[in-house]
């Protein structure tokens, strides 16, 4: 009987010990989970920053994305080119699409490039203003390189320089369905 009593007592003590160990394990696991949850909350809180960045990017892209045909882009570009050259008293000698010029960086799938080489003749100051203005239009246009030389036509030497400007017209292709509602 004494032995049975001792056995039951020991069983009780062992039960306490095993439960305590299980409780300690569960507490450690809970603490670890709580720590991870807290850290994840911080990451999830960045979603608002992401949404703001997305909105800003869309605001920019929607201004220039028309999804228009290449011919329409080129037509619009030529009209603007004529206006700019006329204002700056420059003479546009030649416009060669798809020349050796290639964009300096590979275009992404959302940007469809069309390289164009333009030869413009005029005074240095006007040429600089022209180069500055050429990218300020609705059709996204990038200046890849500019080559300046004394005019090849002797009679035009007093008029200034020949500028060979390699530009790239880009059509921005974005899926408007992805634009956030707000």
């Amino acid at each position, binding site marked *: *009987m004494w032995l*049975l*009593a*001792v*056995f*039951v*007592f020991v069983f*009780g003590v062992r*039960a*306490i010990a095993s*439960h*305590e160990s*299980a*409780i300690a394990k*569960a*507490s450690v*696991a*809970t603490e670890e*989970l*709580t720590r*991870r*949850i807290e850290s*994840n*909350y911080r990451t*999830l809180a*960045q*979603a608002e920053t*992401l949404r703001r*960045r*997305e909105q*800003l*990017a*869309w605001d*920019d*892209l929607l201004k220039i994305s028309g999804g228009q045909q290449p011919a329409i882009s080129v037509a619009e570009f030529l009209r603007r080119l004529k206006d700019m050259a006329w204002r700056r008293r420059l003479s546009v000698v030649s416009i060669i699409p798809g020349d050796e010029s290639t964009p300096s*960086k590979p275009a*992404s799938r*959302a*940007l469809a490039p069309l390289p164009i080489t333009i030869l413009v003749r005029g005074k*240095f100051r006007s040429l*600089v*203003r022209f*180069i*500055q203005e050429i*990218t*300020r239009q609705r059709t*996204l*246009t*990038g*200046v*890849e*390189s*500019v*080559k*300046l030389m*004394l005019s090849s036509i002797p009679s035009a030497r007093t008029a200034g320089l020949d500028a060979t400007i390699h530009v*790239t017209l*880009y059509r*921005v292709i974005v899926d408007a369905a*992805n634009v956030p509602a707000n």
Partner: protein
Amino acid sequence: MNVPVSFDYLRPSSSLEDVLFSCRIPKEMRASCRALCCSVLFALTAWVLEGARLHRALQFERADADRYSRQLSALNAERVYEKRVQALTDLDRRVRTIAESGTLAARRLAALASDLPGNVWVTAITPDGAGVMLDGQARDLNGLSDTLVRLNADPFFVGPSLMSAQRMAATAVTPPGLRFTLHIAARVP
């Protein structure tokens, strides 16, 4: 003859121990029985209390694990969203760079022109992979030296280097001087 008989059905009051020991437990075993009862009581109490504590701890752990797994799926969704926004902002950055390329080229040309001293003329500016080749004429070596110093100090350019300089005889339209070629690396903004 019928005589009414009365019986006392009520038992005399007795303690629990008396009741328990009334089932003929020998006196010498009573102490061990008491110890056994205490042990059983202790074990049962410990079992119940510790079980309750463990149950509660496991409940907390399970609730946190559920919360964590829900959070993980939200986190995965946000990672996909982040990648999409990253691609979009990269495109936006690229578009901005393209849109500013004209201004940058114009600024470089203007800076180049303003760096030239009065007795130096540029005859050609030709872009190459790393910058531009500058062909020009100077009245003398001082002009060429000033040009190099000014270009070196210009924040738009890096390390101008002289490629060639050649004496030039006077012609009907140009005075005697030097024909030179410089290479200038463009600083990446």
